[in-house]
């Protein structure tokens, strides 16, 4: 019976049209892939071009010679190692903070009973509707009073307080699927709620936690507006801010600009290709449950 697969058929006419459709599909897909990926190749090509050739109007695609020195120059003109350090600190701390606090909160909302639980959860969801601009200025003022301006703290500390409504929502969905028998078994063994959280819920939710970690990474590695508001001195800048400074100081040196950009993109691409599964999973989870 039909089970979703293409019926095997020997009718040459049907076969012909089917093959044509397949061929066309592949053609379109390859064409689209080119459109999506050509900018990256051009980026690479520009980054390896010589300074004098970069401003030539219709320069060749494959530069002769490959100026690998562009990368060295681009990354030393501004202190990129400092930018990397700051970005890593922020990103890693936020990943830890968000996964930890979002999972704690989600556990509370999913497996613990307390008065007002549903109302509070709706409040969690409602914060997703809040445009960040409404809270930006007072939050900035809070941080000026704490004297945390021009440090990395305003970008790290909030991650430990809930981790964001989206992650709480995601993890709660996941926790709700944990069978209560496991929880009961742990309780019988004398586990406290915290113990259940740590020993039962977390290990079972590794995929969801991985997703949260990945999205947290993406969000903070590329974050621009946050650091823009809080960080001023060159030593505290992140990669995103550093690239922007690069643009304003050496914006017309396109080869260096592209080399620096590619260097900043590389970690993201590497992590993406290694952890594709979790990316897709995360998007799917968020979309379906939405």
């Amino acid at each position, binding site marked *: 019976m*039909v089970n979703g697969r293409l019926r095997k058929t020997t009718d040459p006419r049907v076969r012909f049209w089917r093959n044509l459709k397949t061929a066309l599909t*592949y053609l379109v897909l390859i064409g*689209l892939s080119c459109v*999506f990926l050509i*900018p*990256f190749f*051009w*980026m690479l090509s520009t980054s390896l071009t010589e300074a004098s050739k*970069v401003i*030539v*109007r219709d320069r060749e695609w494959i530069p002769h010679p490959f100026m690998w020195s562009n990368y060295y120059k681009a990354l030393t003109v501004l202190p990129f190692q400092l930018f990397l350090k700051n970005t890593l600190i922020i990103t890693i701390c936020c990943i830890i903070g968000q996964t930890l*606090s979002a999972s704690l*909160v989600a*556990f*509370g*909302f999913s497996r613990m009973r307390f008065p007002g*639980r549903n109302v*509070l959860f709706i*409040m969690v969801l409602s*914060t997703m*509707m*809040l*445009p*960040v*601009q*409404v*809270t*930006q*200025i007072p*939050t900035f003022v809070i941080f*000026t009073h704490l004297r945390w301006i021009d440090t990395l703290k305003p970008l790290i500390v*909030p991650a430990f*307080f*809930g981790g964001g409504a989206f992650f709480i929502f995601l993890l709660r969905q996941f926790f709700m699927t944990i069978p209560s028998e496991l929880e009961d078994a742990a309780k019988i063994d004398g586990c406290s*709620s915290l113990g259940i959280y740590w020993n039962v819920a977390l290990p079972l939710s590794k995929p969801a936690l991985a997703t949260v970690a990945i999205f947290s990474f993406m969000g903070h*590695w590329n974050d*621009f*507006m946050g650091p*823009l*508001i809080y960080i001023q001195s060159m030593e505290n800048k992140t*990669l*995103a801010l550093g690239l922007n400074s690069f*643009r304003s100081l050496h914006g017309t040196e396109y080869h260096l*600009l*592209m080399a*620096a*950009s*590619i260097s*900043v993109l590389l970690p*993201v*691409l590497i992590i*993406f290709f290694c952890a594709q599964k979790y*990316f*897709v999973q995360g*998007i*799917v989870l*968020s*979309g*379906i449950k*939405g």
Partner: protein
Amino acid sequence: MGKNKLTKRQKVEAVQGFMFISPWMIGFIVFAAGPVIASLVLSFCKWDILTPVQFVGLKNYVKMTNDPLIKKSLTNTLYYASAAIPLGMVGALSTALLLNQKLKGMRLFRTLFYVPSVTAGVATLLLWMLIFNPELGLLNRALRHQIPFTHIPFIADPPKWLGDPHWAMPALIIMALWGVGGGMLIYLAGLQGIPEELYEASLLDGANARQKFWYVTIPLLSPTIFFNLIMSIIGSFQVFNAAFIMTGGGPMDATRFYVLYLFQNAFQYFRMGYASAMAWLLFIIILILTLIQFKIAPKWVHYQ
């Protein structure tokens, strides 16, 4: 029935529950509820951080109605939204449909299409600045390319993109379309959640491809479409990085998005009160738009 008093056990669990969610509660008060109220109060004041706060009542809002840049930035944002949202959704859905076939290599294409979304950040903005460069950029180079076998260029005098007030916004929209990968994945997941039996049933009813699409696919995909729509609306009203880095709002305020103007008012012109008023206007607009969507939803969104 009577009131149910919590047993000691339940009381303990309630306290523990609150402790679990305490990080969020603290965060909510300090970083959400508190600032929301504070910014509302600020919107009725005049403050530039360097001098003391002054209460001015509704003057900020009145000033907003007279400020030509408010109108311009709202128009710009709406222009962008009304183009990027439909185009983005159609693009994402089309690619998802294309990839929803059981052919070899779909996984690879899906990954490739998604890469641009993943790389979103300052680096890709700089890349696109270069792509849109009127003289050296990839786009104009392709447009100026000669049609094969003739000496006629495709478009001899291509637009100046980010340097031309009429083409700056279209340029940003084109750039947004490059990132349809994210939406595509969501639609793909949604498509793959549609049970085969429904398609077969429709075949039995004599449906052709077009009818299958409109009467099976779309209705069953509607929750996903709805979700995407809400997210897109909120997202398109928050475009900041592109405007700040690539054009600075120009040329001639063509890309001065509302959120960019807000940022400039707060952190460049030091008008905290005015910026807070702008933030509240944004909040109300987004709220109204989302409520409208929720109201219309039952008419076209089918939940299984």
